[in-house]
């Protein structure tokens, strides 16, 4: 399987206001490795540079400096080599309302990558698309394929986006805040779907998020970014439970967490019960 290695990745934007130019160092010397079957979480606040990293990995932007290696070989930047890269590395976007073209049917979104990457012929593509829909637990029929994005709920759209990313048969998946725009009650479902697919396909995954809790439960390692730099990088539990950096501690302290709140801990004692495990109730409702 495939490993994607980033070394000293930097991106500087040249901003213009009037005739004046200024530099914005969005990403500075960031290194990491995405390896098969493992998830790396990239955590940071807005403007910390985490989405820029997604763009660099997807070759939507060129790094100012630094290298990207796919299985030890420099990645292709144009033509055939770029197509090969896209074959291996795919992405799920944050906003499922914006990542599907409102003009086109669900079928279009799945058929195009299947055809472009030679995963199916014009004749076999519809069948292959339905298989993809099935894998993301969406209705795999013609009626669904003909629907437009606006007829779907947010959760359904994000599943379509995931199916599209899987269409070329990638080995690396970048998920940029894949659930932050979804209703809270469907978030874990989509994350679980991603986790299952990752295991089935042995995907190398980059999970970009601002939510520390899902980062911890959903990944093997966590990388914390602040103003374009990685300030802390380590095994997920270590970063969350014994953070080394002051900024990581501040992030953790700011996140709402009833389970460690004095008021609820005291209440548990008063009631003589343990702290409840609400995640068990996840599927109480359809």
């Amino acid at each position: 399987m495939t490993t994607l290695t980033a070394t000293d990745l930097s991106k500087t934007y040249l901003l213009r206001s009037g005739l004046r130019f200024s530099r914005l160092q969005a990403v500075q010397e960031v290194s990491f490795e995405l390896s098969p079957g493992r998830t790396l979480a990239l955590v940071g606040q807005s403007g910390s540079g985490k989405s820029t990293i997604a763009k660099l990995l997807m070759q939507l932007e060129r790094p100012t400096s630094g290298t990207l290696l796919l299985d030890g070989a420099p990645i292709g930047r144009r033509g055939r080599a770029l197509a090969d890269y896209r074959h291996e590395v795919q992405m799920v976007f944050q906003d499922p309302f914006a990542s599907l073209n409102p003009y086109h049917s669900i079928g279009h979104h799945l058929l195009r990558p299947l055809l472009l990457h030679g995963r199916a012929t014009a004749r076999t593509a519809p069948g292959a698309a339905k298989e993809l829909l099935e894998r993301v637990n969406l209705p795999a029929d013609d009626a669904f394929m003909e629907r437009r994005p606006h007829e779907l709920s947010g959760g359904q759209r994000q599943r379509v986006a995931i199916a599209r990313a899987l269409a070329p048969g990638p080995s690396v998946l970048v998920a940029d805040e894949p659930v932050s725009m979804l209703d809270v009650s469907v978030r874990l479902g989509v994350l679980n779907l991603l986790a299952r697919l990752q295991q089935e396909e042995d995907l190398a995954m980059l999970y970009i998020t601002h939510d520390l809790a899902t980062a911890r439960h959903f990944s093997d390692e966590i990388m914390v970014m602040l103003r374009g730099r990685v300030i802390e990088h380590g095994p997920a539990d270590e970063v969350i439970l014994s953070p080394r950096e002051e900024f990581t501690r501040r992030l953790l302290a700011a996140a709402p967490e009833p389970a460690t709140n004095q008021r609820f801990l005291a209440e548990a004692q008063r009631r003589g019960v343990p702290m409840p495990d609400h995640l068990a109730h996840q599927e109480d409702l359809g």
Partner: protein
Amino acid sequence: MTTITEESAQIDETEKTTAPRRRRPATTLVVGLGIVVAIVLFGLVAPFFTQDPLAVSNDGMQGPSAAHLLGTTQTGQDVLAQLAHATRGSLMVGVIVAVLALLLSAFFGILGGYLGGWLDEVFSLFTNVVLILPGLPLMIVIGSYVEQRGLLLIAFVLAITSWAASARVLRSQTLSIRSRDYVHAARIAGEKPWRIISVEILPNLLPVMSSGFVFALITAILGEAGLSFIGLGVVGTQTWGSMLFYAQNGQALTLGGWWWFVPPGFMIAVLGGGLSLINFSIDAIINPRLRNAPANVRRVQKAEKEAGA
């Protein structure tokens, strides 16, 4: 990042519930289309049934009668026949100009907006300069130098002075669509640039482009009428503007020949009105707030009235 997240979620909460599912076409659209279709049919069909528009007779400056439904000109030509041929001429000029303007605006607007960089800078500067230069004076200068003013030349002159406004709109729309995730997703899927422009971006620009087309049609017909009225129109082709030019020079005003100068202007105004009504509906598609907000107010008023009664 979170900003976008929650804002859109918020919008979604209200707009999802207010958007009606299937709506019947708006009244303005039906009326507008009706007007335009009627005038186009008149221009296409009527010339086959009318008298010779250039045939001179001795019944000069006669008011409407059974023989001449819209009266005659100073030289006894049938005004209805002239109107029919002029409708055809004006529409032809209008459509040619609108198509040319659409192509020009799409080229400068979409290409510049999509490719970005210095090309966009140059295109956008050029567009803004053309936009700000007053059109008619320029047309007059060019028109007066050329003796043989053919249909295509006039159409070309009208087109080069009327594409800039919609190019600017198209550019900003393209810029906004280009940065949307579905375009990024298409790039990541491996689509070629021309396919991204034509399949992913262009369909989403259709409402804006049709609005620009309709606007260009109005502008072109008005512009042609203005040029013809001052005697710089297409040589040898009858248009509404040329009718007005001859009416003004033929003393229709002072001789009280209203049947000569009222119909052509009326046709322009009504066609323009019809096209504007169509644009009115397109605007509501481009910006759903324009349709939803007034409709919501009306529905609540109606419901309150019913509840009160």
